[in-house]
């Protein structure tokens, strides 16, 4: 009886019903789309970050134990995260640490590298750059350097005596191309000539505009160092990076950076975007809920007499409320269904739509994510929205005094 009445009432006011369902559909559909897009961007971003930075990087910067007054002297050995006064050129005992770090649980790969600052000069242009000296084979294992080369000349880079790989942004600015010879200038004014083997494009603009690669041994010679100043770790579980970094910090006494902490600011930005999306979607839901409440309240007021006669032939207050709650549920369910469908269509449409972003990340098409949670959560919210919207009308419907309504017409 309740379902039957609810369904007939909904069917009877077609226009309002279509509007109600449409508003839930829009809310659910947009939430699904926005959540998918947001997650897509986040995953894409993480993928890209992980692709260009090691999960954990141990640097040559030494951490000092901080003496704390009034504390037991043994506690002083607790290593705290404070920058050392000076940054040694290289990691002391590199061979030993390399073995030790590679043997840590959860560490799947390790590479040694040397990173320093310098200038690059080509023609009449020059630019400050980050110079990374790497072992091509190791570096490739850590973050897939080879995949990001325009011409794929990893072999050539490994064997050429003075090869250099330029970030695509640097090459563009200098108007240099593979085959050209560029000059690197060190902090002490030393100069060295390198031949461009290939161009590097990660998709993270900040990297592509600032970073260049040379062989580790060339970097050590260029900077006058006797060994690497970084170890890069690849982990089984990228999300354990903070934990592993804490471990290597206390183990080695060296500053260790993990990709999660390093990108904290960007995560903040992503969270901010989440909140904005949530705000938009929340507003849509609230508006549609108010719309439904409004429509149903009007219906309740117009159906005062119908409600009174239903009471007269034996429908009790609980059942009357249930009829309206059921309407809300049906509207919510249909809206949720429509929303899931339109969400799926939107996700598909956006994932095949060719779009390019140039702000911080370069890519083609929106990175959309498919996951059942993306559908079920907004759908549940949509259904809840319908139910919640109908609660006030349901309550109102059960409050009429039949005698008064019938007397006053």
């Amino acid at each position: 009886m309740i379902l039957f009445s609810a369904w007939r009432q909904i069917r009877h006011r077609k226009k309002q019903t279509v509007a109600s369902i449409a508003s839930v559909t829009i809310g659910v559909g947009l939430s699904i789309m926005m959540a998918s897009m947001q997650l897509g961007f986040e995953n894409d971003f993480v993928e890209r970050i992980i692709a260009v930075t090691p999960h954990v990087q141990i640097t040559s910067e030494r951490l000092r134990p901080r003496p704390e007054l009034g504390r037991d002297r043994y506690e002083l050995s607790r290593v705290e995260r404070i920058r050392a006064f000076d940054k040694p050129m290289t990691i002391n005992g590199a061979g030993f640490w390399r073995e030790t770090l590679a043997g840590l649980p959860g560490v799947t790969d390790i590479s040694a590298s040397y990173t320093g600052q310098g200038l690059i000069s080509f023609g009449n242009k020059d630019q400050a750059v980050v110079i990374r000296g790497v072992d091509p084979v190791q570096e490739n294992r850590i973050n897939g350097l080879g995949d990001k080369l325009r011409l794929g000349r990893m072999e050539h880079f490994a064997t050429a005596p003075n090869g250099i790989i330029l970030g695509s942004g640097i090459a563009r600015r200098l108007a240099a191309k593979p085959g050209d010879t560029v000059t690197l200038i060190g902090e002490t004014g030393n100069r060295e000539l390198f031949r461009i083997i290939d161009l590097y494009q990660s998709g993270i603009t900040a990297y592509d505009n600032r970073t260049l690669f040379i062989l580790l041994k060339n970097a050590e010679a260029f900077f006058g160092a006797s060994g690497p100043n970084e170890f890069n770790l690849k982990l089984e579980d990228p999300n354990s990076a903070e934990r592993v970094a804490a471990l290597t910090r206390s183990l080695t006494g060296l500053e260790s950076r993990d990709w999660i902490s390093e990108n904290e600011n960007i995560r903040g930005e992503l969270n901010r975007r989440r909140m904005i999306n949530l705000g938009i979607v929340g507003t849509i839901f609230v508006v549609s809920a108010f719309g439904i409440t409004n429509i149903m309240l009007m219906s309740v007021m117009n159906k005062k007499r119908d409600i009174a006669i239903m009471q007269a032939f034996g429908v009790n207050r609980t059942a009357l409320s249930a009829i309206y709650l059921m309407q809300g549920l049906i509207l919510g369910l249909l809206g949720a269904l429509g929303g899931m469908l339109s969400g799926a269509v939107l996700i598909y449409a956006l994932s095949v739509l060719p779009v390019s972003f140039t702000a911080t990340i370069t890519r083609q098409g929106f990175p959309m994510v498919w996951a059942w949670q993306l559908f079920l959560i907004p759908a549940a919210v949509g259904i809840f929205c319908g139910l919640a919207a109908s609660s006030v009308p349901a309550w109102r419907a059960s409050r009429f005094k039949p005698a008064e309504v019938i007397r006053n017409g």
Partner: protein
Amino acid sequence: MVEFCKPAAGKKILELREVSKRLKSGDSWTTILDAVNLDFYQGDFCAIVGNSGSGKSTLLYLLGILDSPSDGKILLDGIDTGALDNRELAKLRNEKLGFVFQFHYILPEFTALENVMLPMMVAARLSKAQQRERAMMLLDQLGLAERRNYYPSQLSGGQLQRVAIARALANQPLIVLADEPTGNLDSANSKIVFDYFRKLNQETGQTFLVVTHTVGFVQDCDRIIEISDGKVIHDRRGPIASSESNLSPGGQPA
């Protein structure tokens, strides 16, 4: 002078004991019904008459437990209705009472047949097929067999009122309460309604309590209750023409 009537043959199914209804109008309370005592018996075919504003509708709503009295007791089929909650009252109305009002109150989103089935659906005692069959039978008796699948918007006022009557009879109520059921009908339709009530009363022994102004109908009733200013001023059995012989002045029903 207040006259009281003798009981009819059937058992007592509805009684009002010192029932008053007061309503607040502005700052003051108005007494609409004043200490009314009435007994109704199975098979009563009773007209309630009185001037406009005398309290007939108020009385009928109380008799139909659609409203609760300010004072006094209403016993329906032996049950003290004052002690019941909304759910129990609704169930009682569904099972024992049928209502017809001046306006038909047919629900627009259901067909004629479905409207008649609704009280049976609420009761949920019959199967869907049985409900359907009974609703069709009632509509057929009221000359609406052909229109049973019409929606209310496709029916005339007279037809709708007949659907409302079929709906009131759906659960074979002990008592049918009607408040000016022919107030919006032409004389032909009015006659159909009254004749049907009378026929049912005679065939099934159902009780009919009908507020009406239609003289022809009142004259045909077994019992006439006249209300004035919230008080029962006449309560007598038999057609008005021969009512004198049925009066038993100054006493309670034996």
